[in-house]
């Protein structure tokens, strides 16, 4: 949770956005994020994001589910209350596979959704700052983080030169918070786009 200062610029065309992302990175600016109305293939590569480790988390949740199912069933059917089902062995592994499979899927699915929410810091009933509401509709918004060395005027001029429109500066909260948009965030002073 931290308030930071950002230079925000928007784009109307994907074909302008891609070269702009490359130029901005080459110029040494720190891209906080690029907000787009729809997923754009290859944008993560252009921005130089690292590969997500969400699937590793998914694997760990999955084997947790497998272990839970197998240990739960074997405790019940081998130690706690062994029953004879149609002459089958007590350790009836094939019959346990469906439940094991389902718990694996359940654990990994639910775990990955929650992890995804946490990583993106977005969830129901939780607030997060919008840099440009139109980035959910028809604009691509690039947000550059101002470091102590960033010259804001130059950064704005540079964004203009790569084809951005509606360039301005925002002080914004980067994390998520519980509460409302309007009152509980006195920290956002130049809150141009906070409309809700």
């Amino acid at each position, binding site marked *: 949770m931290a308030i930071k200062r950002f230079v925000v610029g928007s784009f109307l065309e994907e074909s302008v956005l891609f070269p702009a992302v490359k130029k901005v990175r080459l110029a040494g600016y720190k891209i906080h994020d690029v907000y787009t109305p729809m997923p754009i293939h290859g944008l993560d590569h252009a921005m130089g994001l690292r590969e997500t480790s969400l699937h590793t988390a998914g694997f760990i949740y999955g084997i947790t589910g497998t272990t839970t199912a197998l240990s739960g069933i074997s405790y019940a059917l081998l130690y706690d209350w062994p029953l004879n089902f149609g002459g089958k062995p007590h350790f009836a592994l*094939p019959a346990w596979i469906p439940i094991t499979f389902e718990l694996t899927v359940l654990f990994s699915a639910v775990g990955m959704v929650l992890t995804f929410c946490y990583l993106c810091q977005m969830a129901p009933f939780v607030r997060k700052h919008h840099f440009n509401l139109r980035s959910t509709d028809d604009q691509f918004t690039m947000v550059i983080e101002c470091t102590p060395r960033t010259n804001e005027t130059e950064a704005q001029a540079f964004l203009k030169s790569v084809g951005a429109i509606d360039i301005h500066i925002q002080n914004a909260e980067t994390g998520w918070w519980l509460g409302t948009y309007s009152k509980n965030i006195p920290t956002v002073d130049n809150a141009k786009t906070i409309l809700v």
Partner: protein
Amino acid sequence: MSIKQRFEIPSGFRMWSMGLMIIGIASLIIGYFVYGSGTEAQQTRFWAALLQNSVYFLLVVNAAMFFFCAVTLAWGGFQMAFRRVTEAIAACVPIIGGITFVILMCLVAGHKTFMYEWLDKARVASDPILNGKKGFLNPTFFIIWTTLTIGLWTVLGYKMRSLSRELDNHRPTVEEGKKYIWKNTVWAAVYIFWFALTVASTVPWLWLMSISAHWFSTMYSWYTFASTFVAGVALITLFVIYLKNKGYLEYVNKEHLHDLGKFQFAFSIFWTYLWFSQFMLIWYANIPEETTYFRPRFEGAYTGIFYLNLTINFLAPLLIYMRSSSKRNYTTLTFMSVALLFGHWLDFYQMVFASLIPDHVPMNIFDFGIAAGFVGLIIYQTGNVLAKFPLVAINHPFFKESIIHYT
């Protein structure tokens, strides 16, 4: 960017494919004298090897045909960078189909009751189960349906391949492009329809499951389909990697190979799902007439193959293909593709042999010799077709989509 449009067959390629085919023919001849003309038990072993190999490799090359028809039907653009490779593999269908047809006709018209017991009229009349299946399991239906199956695969395959070459020397306008895509979609749909009626339902019952005519499983055809589809995608992957290594297919990148890897991974899991559904219900219900099928496989001579089958076709892809980096790596892809092709060959082996020769596993160099012959034939024919036509369909409307393919 200029690209290499013509595949020139390297001399080693031709030598290897010829060599493998010679091994195949030699195995066939030697096998005929050692097994094929001997006692009934020996003849069973001979014909079982021919049946298993011919049906397996036919369904594998036909899976390549299914692959590009299914992707075409779904308007998938990513395949265009390597589409000609799948088409070239599918061009093996007429030849291997012809061989399979001859073998199946030898079995049915040759009245080989030791292979298909439902050929024996006296036994069918006295056996209530066989008598009940008479409408489906009879020589007339078998011959007509087999002819139709292989014939229509050949015709529709020819149609799809000539459609694909239609635009080779002519860049279409938008209107022409739309019409062309629509025509492709319709013909692909016709093929998929016929595929559903053959591989996905009747043909594995007729060719393979009727070996154990008293037993039946409705999962069997899907399970066979999944098996051959995994192997088919593995074969496509091997050819694409080979051509990449030789400097062809410049537009194919790691994203396309990643997709092929994903197909192998996903359908390996699908295969396991069907395999397990078939096994678990029978194991749990424990009805004698159903468990006869698994008796030699699960706790008999074929136990080793049973678990090896599961290890190669399920555990190996699950653990090796799970990471995305291994689906993008040429070495792991090649290794796993070869392993899966062998694994599903082994799957077919136990499907055929454990029903016919349940008391011991007669696998020896003869089986591998016949398999080598088919592998050589596939390499030879695919190479020839690749060399005959341009390698990349650059005028196809979806071609650009395939180049800028990102996952």
